[in-house]
């Protein structure tokens, strides 16, 4: 176990460096964007006069590296600054929205992960049958449809035509959990459709990959029934790649859902980030990107730890 802890510590250290590098990249990317925040805020109504005034007010007249160092200094003390546009603290702007994003991601993940693994096992069991082929075509189709399109189709059938679920996934803090789940069902389902296929295919592939191993043949020769061969003898050894794909998809559920948010008007963090980029609101862009990157890094780390924990060789050293 000591090994795992030292691995985690090392990876977290690397993660911090990665975050630092990302913050530099994001800062200068935002700097490089044509136009600046003053122009973005004032838009068509900008004149040389009020542009200069706003720039002075926001401190944009100082050199970029200095501004970055300022930001970094306060970020290290836990203060991510104020939004340049709304002047409210970044943490405030992001807090509830990130909570919402996490809620939706969890919702989708709770449905998608078990479903994907179950289906993956099923198609591995009935490999090369009609069922497998159909699942293959369906999942490929769902992978290859743009997610906003999937969203629109779901809205058409489940909201407009039948009225089963609300089309607008606007949630409030004072809603009950059931209300929230009902309201966010369609965006969650869209995301489920987007991620299930990938995870399911990976589960199937890793299982089938192991079917040629001698211990699987041994299990068959012991008279173990086909489903048990898959569930008991193959799946436990197939976890590592599956966990990695699951982690990748979980990261996607959190970081890649801008389009779903737009389609279902869900108050998540993705929309905030796109708005912030448009307005060149650097502190918000930076904070969002770092949250996303940290999510990605942590999930990857979790996946690696998961692979270690599911590997008996590493879990039970000699």
């Amino acid at each position, binding site marked *: 176990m000591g090994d795992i802890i030292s691995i985690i510590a090392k990876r977290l250290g690397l993660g911090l460096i990665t975050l630092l590098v990302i913050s530099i990249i994001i800062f200068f990317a935002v700097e490089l964007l044509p136009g600046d925040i003053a122009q973005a805020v*004032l838009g068509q109504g900008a*004149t040389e006069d009020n542009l200069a005034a706003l720039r002075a007010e926001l401190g944009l007249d100082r050199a970029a590296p200095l501004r970055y160092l300022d930001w970094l200094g306060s970020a290290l003390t836990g203060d991510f600054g104020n939004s340049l546009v709304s002047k409210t603290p970044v943490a405030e*702007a992001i807090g509830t929205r990130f909570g919402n994003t996490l809620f939706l991601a969890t919702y989708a993940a709770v449905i998608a992960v078990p479903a994907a693994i179950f289906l993956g096992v099923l198609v591995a069991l009935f490999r090369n049958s009609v069922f497998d082929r159909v699942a293959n075509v369906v999942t490929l189709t769902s992978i290859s449809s743009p997610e906003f399109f999937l969203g629109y189709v779901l809205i058409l059938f489940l*909201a407009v035509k039948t009225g089963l679920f609300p089309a607008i996934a606007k949630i409030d803090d004072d809603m009950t959990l059931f209300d929230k789940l009902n309201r966010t069902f369609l965006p969650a389902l869209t995301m489920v459709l987007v991620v299930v296929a990938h995870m399911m295919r990976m589960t199937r592939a890793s299982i089938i990959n192991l079917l040629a191993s001698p211990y699987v043949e041994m299990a068959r020769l012991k008279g173990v029934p086909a489903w048990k061969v898959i569930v008991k003898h193959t799946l436990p050894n197939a976890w590592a790649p599956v966990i990695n794909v699951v982690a990748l998809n979980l990261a996607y559920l959190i970081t890649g859902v801008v389009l779903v948010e737009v*389609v279902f*008007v869900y108050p998540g963090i993705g929309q905030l980030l796109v708005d912030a980029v448009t307005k060149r609101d650097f502190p918000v862009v930076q904070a969002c990107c770092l949250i996303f990157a940290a999510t990605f890094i942590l999930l990857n780390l979790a996946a690696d730890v998961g692979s270690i924990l599911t590997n008996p060789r590493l879990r039970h050293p000699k």
Partner: protein
Amino acid sequence: MTDRTKKEFKELLTQDAKSGKLGRRDFMRFAVAAGMTIPLASGLWSSEVAAATPKKGGKFRVGVHDMNTSDSHDPGTYQSVGQIQIAHTHRSYLTEITPENGLGPDMADSWSASPDAKVWTFELNKNATFHNGKKFTSADAIASLNHHRGEKSTSGGKALLSSVSDIKAKGDHTLVIELNQGSADLPWFLTDYHLVMIPAKADGTADWESGTGAGPYEITSHKPGIGTNYKRHGGWHREGAYFDEIEMVGLNDPNARQTALITGDVDAITSVDLKTAALLGRNPNIVVENVPSGSAITLPMFCDVAPFDNLDVRLALKYAVDRQDLVDKIMFGTATVGNDYHVSAGMPYAPTDIPQRPYDPDKAKFHLKKAGMSNLEVNLSAADSILPGAVDMCVLYSEHAKKAGIKLNAIREPNDGYWSDVWLKKPWCFVKWGARPTPDQMFTLAYKDDAPWNESHWQNKRFNELLLMAKAELDDTRRAEQYREMCVLASDDGGTVIPFFANFVYARTKKVAHGSSLAASWELDGGRGYHRWWFA
């Protein structure tokens, strides 16, 4: 027309008018066209249609587009449609544009000007209060207007008040505005969405942070980019504000707005996707409002940059566009053809007798030949964020221009940063202007030789002389003539192609009712549907 069909037509008309599909003006026109006498029609209007009197109550839910997470309550930063809708709901202005597109009182009861139109006196409404109970006084008005003035102001409304030299209080409820240059249009200017009235702080600055206003509704919760909730302001100084509560939901995706309206999640939406407006209108529970506006699409060419410095090239390009086709295809008929001068039919002093420039490829060819540029190739920049279909419009324009032998390349610019990198930078680009109440304001902003936003770099001496003369002219007839001449100049010499004026296309469910006409200044009855409309 037989009597029977007449009768049916009358019923049909009344039906439409009652449901709000027809305004009073249209009703009268159709009625007279159907053979009714004017008094009869007028009587019918008041007896049948106007009888639908407003009722109080209910929660009005509106899906609004262009709501951003960065939207703040600072009136200096007002820019997005969402902000403008919010501003008109929780704040008030000194003057307003009436549903009939006239000028009306809001927080100012009445106003008068000195003969040179340099000194204006406004009598403020004595009953007006802010949401926190504070009485509205001239000090508040001064603080509110000064918020946009001065060296350090970052306000988008700064230019509007650039000619104001001083604002003084004469007692608690009288406001005196002095201009360094006569302007007959000042009361119109004051309807501009930036110029909201906000309470003054002790130090004389405006307290915009609290979100307190003197508007018909008071904010109960505000989540930028997500939505805002309101309750009725009990001490509002005017008639109206029929709804008990208002909920504005940010619905930026056109499909989401439409779906929300169909499924009944909201009662009204802004900006219907034009492609599907007709399909949406087929829904028996939904009314699509199609209101002509003063919002113009302009395609300004830099008159000092080749090839646009050649008048014949400009004219060729003006003849090479089939405006009606653009209106039909891009706006799905929800627009009014433009004639290359920036005064819409709904504006005061709009000229009516200037002949419409036709789509005439031969004439365009003739002008090109004259200019010696038979193989003209030009780039036209656009982005869909300016107007959905903007890029398509340029593509269509290029198809039209092809017939005149012009190679017009439609360039899709990034949505992001369009105003800072394309507008006023690229020699020919796509621009959308919000409605301005008077020709003077529009011309001063974007056509005056030294205006910072003179987007076509157009320098016409006569035009600028006329502009100055008309500004302080208090005699309407003379003013109208001056504006007519300016329009002709803009059309025949100017660098701006104005293919059409966009209509406001928004929708409501049949549960919502409104008066006989709708203001053309902003969506949802000039942004004032919240207090003008009611649940039937």
